[in-house]
Structure formats: structure tokens, C-alpha cells
């Protein structure tokens, strides 16, 4: 049997919905809105904040152990601990499930059965994930900043200043100069004389002035760009390898292990994050000093920060247009 032979007599079909029912940009924004609400009402935000808490947590350890730091501890920890470590996990946890969990539970079918092209739905999901993820990733930075400031206190510097050469008959000796027993008058001039130093303690003011608002701004910008870059990559992994959430996580970890520790990552990702942040925020904050010499130029940094991730997202969105999203249990 290959056809349905009997036409079914039905009344005339109703008119099609009004022309206003095709608004792709509106579709994108609604997909973003749904995605953002999913993010902010689900457990992911707590997992992410917990991951980010590593940074202020380490700073709090500094507080207890060092009881006040000479150098701003934020400057010591941000680059190595947060920007190159915690943000990877934050992006991984936040971005992969943003799309793949919808595929897993089948809710993506509600979104795709709408008059909005799939790439725009995917872009909306990405946008809705990215913005709250960026905001959440900034929280540990903002928490860590005053914690770090609180540790920077006035301190004492001890210096040793050489004594001036001893002179016979010098009646105008200054206080604190060493005087040999029995008086220098008995010693022959210039013979057997030892250079002496005086210990001088100086009270120094707090170096909080080194923690400029510009430094915080750079850190916030670097965080946002790092999230943009990593989260876009991981989100794209979730779009392409969209089966179960756990499997998507495994893909993410494999990506991080095999790509993240290679020169590709160092140059394409971390370096570009730093470069874009630094070039935009010159003069270079103390915690990034030394990085700029090896960082790409600004145009190259933007390629790494924006163009490459957006290209990857575009490829993922195109794959999504041809991909079967069949949900759970099929």
C-alpha cells in the first residue's frame, strides 16, 4: 500500500496566522531569554560559583597564613589560578549543558518546531548562556578584590646603611656611628679599619595604591573575554556532540586535556585573552607584567578572542541545521 486513496472531505482551512508571526530576531531573543532563565534557575549557577570560589578561597588562606601581604595577593594569584584554571571549569560546567541538556530531555523539539531558523535558536541559546555565565564568573573576582586589598597593610623596611669613613680627631661624630673601644684617636689613620653598617628601620605606607581600579577593570575584562572564548568552544561541543550531559562533559574534558595543554591553547586561548585585555588596558597592570612581551598584537588578539570562537559557533549552528535532534529514549 503506497498511497492514501480517499480524499477526506473537510471544510475550508482557516486563514494562516498573521504575517507578524515571522520575526527571526524576536525568535533569537526569546531563545536567549529562555536559555538565561534556565541557567539562572537551575543548579548550574551554584556549581559555577562553587568552582569560582577557589580563587577567593586561596586568598583567604593567604589572610590566615601571612597576616598581611606586602605585595597585592590578587596580583599574584589571578593570572595563574583564576584566568588559566577556574575559568576553564566554569565555562565547561556552564556552557556544555546549555544546549545538550535540552536535546537530552527533548525540550529542544519545542524550540525547533517554530518559524525561526535553527542557527538563530542556537545563537539565542548561546547568548542566553553566555551573559549570565560572564556575570557569575565576575563574582569571584569582585569578592577576591576587597579580600586582597584587606591584606595589604603598612609595613616596616629594614635597611643597613654604611657608616662614613672614620676620621681622626673628628669631633663631630654623628649619633649611631661606631666608635672603637678606647677611641679612634689611638688607631693609625687608614690602617685596619672595618666598614660598618647601621640597621635602619623605615615605616612604609600601605601599597594599596598599586591596586588601581584599572587593575580590577583589567581583571574583569580578562575574565569576560576568557568566558566568551572558552564557553563558546564548549557550547559548540554541546551542540555538535549533543547526546547525554555526562558524555558532553567527557568531550569537554577530553578537549581540555588534549587541546588545552598544548601550544594551541596557550596561544589561541590564554594568550589572546591576556593580549586583548592588556592592549586595551595599557599601561599594563602589575599582575600581567611580563605577559605583554609575548602577547600577540591587538588585532591578532581579537581574532583569537572573538573571530575564532564565533566561527566555531557558526560551524556548530550550521551542523545543527542538518542534525537530527531526537531527544531521550529514541
Amino acid at each position, binding site marked *: 500500500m503506497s498511497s*492514501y486513496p480517499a480524499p477526506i472531505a473537510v*471544510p475550508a*482551512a482557516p486563514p494562516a496566522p498573521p504575517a*507578524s508571526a515571522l520575526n527571526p530576531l524576536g*525568535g533569537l531573543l526569546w531563545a536567549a531569554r529562555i536559555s538565561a532563565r534556565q541557567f539562572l534557575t537551575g543548579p548550574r549557577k551554584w556549581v559555577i560559583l562553587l568552582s569560582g570560589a577557589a580563587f577567593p578561597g586561596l586568598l583567604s588562606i593567604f589572610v590566615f597564613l601571612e597576616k598581611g601581604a606586602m605585595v597585592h595577593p590578587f596580583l599574584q594569584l589571578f593570572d595563574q589560578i583564576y584566568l588559566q584554571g577556574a575559568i576553564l571549569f566554569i565555562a565547561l560546567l556552564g556552557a556544555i549543558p546549555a544546549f545538550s541538556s535540552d536535546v537530552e530531555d527533548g525540550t529542544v523539539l519545542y524550540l525547533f*518546531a517554530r518559524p525561526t531558523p535553527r542557527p538563530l535558536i542556537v545563537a539565542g541559546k548561546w547568548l542566553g548562556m553566555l551573559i549570565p555565565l560572564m556575570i557569575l564568573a565576575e563574582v569571584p573576582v569582585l569578592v577576591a578584590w576587597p579580600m586582597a586589598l584587606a591584606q595589604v597593610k603598612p609595613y616596616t623596611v629594614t635597611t643597613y646603611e654604611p657608616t662614613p669613613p672614620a676620621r681622626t680627631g673628628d669631633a663631630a661624630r654623628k649619633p649611631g656611628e661606631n666608635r672603637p673601644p678606647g677611641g679612634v684617636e689611638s688607631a693609625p689613620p687608614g690602617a685596619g679599619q672595618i666598614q660598618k653598617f647601621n640597621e635602619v628601620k623605615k615605616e612604609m605606607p600601605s601599597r594599596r595604591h598599586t591596586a588601581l581600579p584599572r587593575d580590577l577593570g583589567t581583571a574583569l575584562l580578562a575574565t569576560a573575554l576568557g568566558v566568551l572564548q572558552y564557553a563558546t568552544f564548549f557550547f559548540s561541543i554541546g551542540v555538535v556532540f549533543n547526546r547525554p550531559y555526562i558524555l558532553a562533559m567527557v568531550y569537554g574534558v577530553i578537549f581540555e586535556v588534549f587541546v588545552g595543554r598544548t601550544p594551541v591553547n596557550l596561544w589561541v586561548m590564554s594568550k589572546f585573552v591576556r593580549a586583548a585585555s592588556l592592549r586595551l588596558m595599557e599601561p599594563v597592570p602589575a599582575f600581567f607584567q611580563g605577559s605583554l612581551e609575548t602577547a600577540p598584537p591587538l588585532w591578532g588578539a581579537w581574532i583569537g578572542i572573538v573571530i575564532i570562537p564565533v566561527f566555531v559557533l557558526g560551524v556548530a549552528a550550521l551542523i545543527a541545521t542538518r542534525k537530527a535532534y531526537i531527544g531521550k529514549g529514541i
Partner: protein
Amino acid sequence: MSGLLLDFRGVTRWYGQVVALRDVTLAVNPGVVGLLGPNGAGKTTMLRLVTGSMPPSRGAALVFGAHAFGDPSLFRRVGYCPDHDNFFEFMTGREFVEALLGIHGLGASERRRRAGAALDRVKGAEFADRKIYGYSKGMRQRLKLAQALAHDPELLVLDEPLNGADPLIRRDIIDLVKEVGREGRSVIISSHVLHEVEAMTPNIVMMHKGRVMAAGNVHEIRGMIDRHPHSIEMRTPRARDLAALLARDKDVSEMSIGDGAVTVRTPKPEEFYGRLPQLVLESGIPVEELRSPDDNLDAVFRYLTEH
């Protein structure tokens, strides 16, 4: 434009090594159509092809004359009710329907109006402002229908909407489908519960193991099953006499005599029905009741799927 609702041309769809649909060619006119088959028959795959959730692996799946996959504008005319009960649980039912209308690009007042109307129609207004995570199975069924109806589609695609529903909701869904059909809209409804589909429409497409085994009116389908004898039961006080008479009929392949009844099986029921009044009149044997015990969807379905 062909004017067809569905036009499947040699459609095959496989998932890895599993073939879900096999070379399906099918033309369906507008109206209410039941898609019937046991679990694994390929019903959901077929509906997902209809709704453009996936492309066919081979062949062409056209809805309203256009390829369903890759044509998002089609979804102004199609409402889809999937078979699962997952939603964006953090939303209220009303927010859920309005959000999906937002993806249609509708303005705020239009979203509110349509969402309210759809929820009223499925009798969901009373729970519409509660969070979905607290919904019962029945509420979820109603919400699924509301989101599919809200944008006023010409075609409603319902994947197992009666599955797990209590009798009250079943009745409401059946009434709703009939009402939507009377409005001139088309409905494709899948189910493996045959009598429920029969209550909604006589027009069916029967599927088994990824193939369309029959399509049309249930009676027409029954007539197409030549190799399966059709049962006809006749109640009479003279069962033996009637049996002796019918034993000579060339179209009777089997016969049994019960308590005041003779049941014959014939591969050519139309011809047999045509001759029967004359035979009865000539013999003078009274026949009090005539019925076909297997002229219902269950029997037809059983016939079609037993091989």
C-alpha cells in the same frame, strides 16, 4: 501545489544501524488522520519528519507541498505536540506557552491573548499560573496541547497524546481533536490504542516495522486484506440449516456453528455480502442479526501486523 497534507516519497530514515522507516511512499489529504502501530513501528520518526525535527535519510518528506526539514516558515502552519512530558520546569504553564509564542515573533498582547485562549481551550487555565514542576501527568498533557494550538496552526501533529492520560483527559483530548477537525484544520495523531483513534477518525495510516502497511478508511483497509478471511457472524434459530446452505457458497473458506449463530470466514466479503440477502430470501432461513466481529481497528491491526 498538490493540495496534499503529507507527501512522502520513498522516505527512509535510519539511526545508525537501525532502520526506523523503510521506503515509505504515502499521500495524505487534509483532515484528521490516525497514525497507528505498535511501539517501534516508526510513528514517532514519521511525525518528527513531518515536523522537520530531522531530515529523511533518503527520499522526500513534504508537508503542505514543501520540504518539512529546513523550512522554518512552515511552522507558522504546524503545531507539534511531542510524546515526552519534559518542559522548561521553572516556568509556569502560561509563561511556557507565551515564551514559545515569543519565538514566533508575536508581540506581548498577542502572546497573552493567544496563550490565554489556548489554555482555556485545553481546560488548563486553572493551573496555568503554577510552576510546571508541580504539574500532574494530565496537566502536562493539556499544556502540551496548548502550546501546539496557541499559534493557530492549520496542522496539529500529536504524538501519543492519549498515552498515560486518565479517562477524563482522554475524553477531553478526543473531543478536542474532533472539534479541531470540524474547524477545518488537519490533525495527525499517533497512537497504539486503536479504539481511541477510531473514536476520533475513520481515516488511518497503519504502520509496522517502519513500513506503511495500509492507509485509508478502516473499512476500505479491511477490504484490501484479501489474504485474511473476513469474519461474518449471523444469528439465526436455524443455525444448522444456514450452515448447510452456506457450505456450498464458493466464497466461504471456513465456517463454525455456535449457540444460535453461524460464523463464516470469507476472503471476499463484498461479494459475499452482495449474495447473502438473495440466499437468505430463497432459503427462507431467518437471520436475526448480522455483524462482522472483526470489522474494527483492533482486528484489522491484528491482521496487518501478524506477518
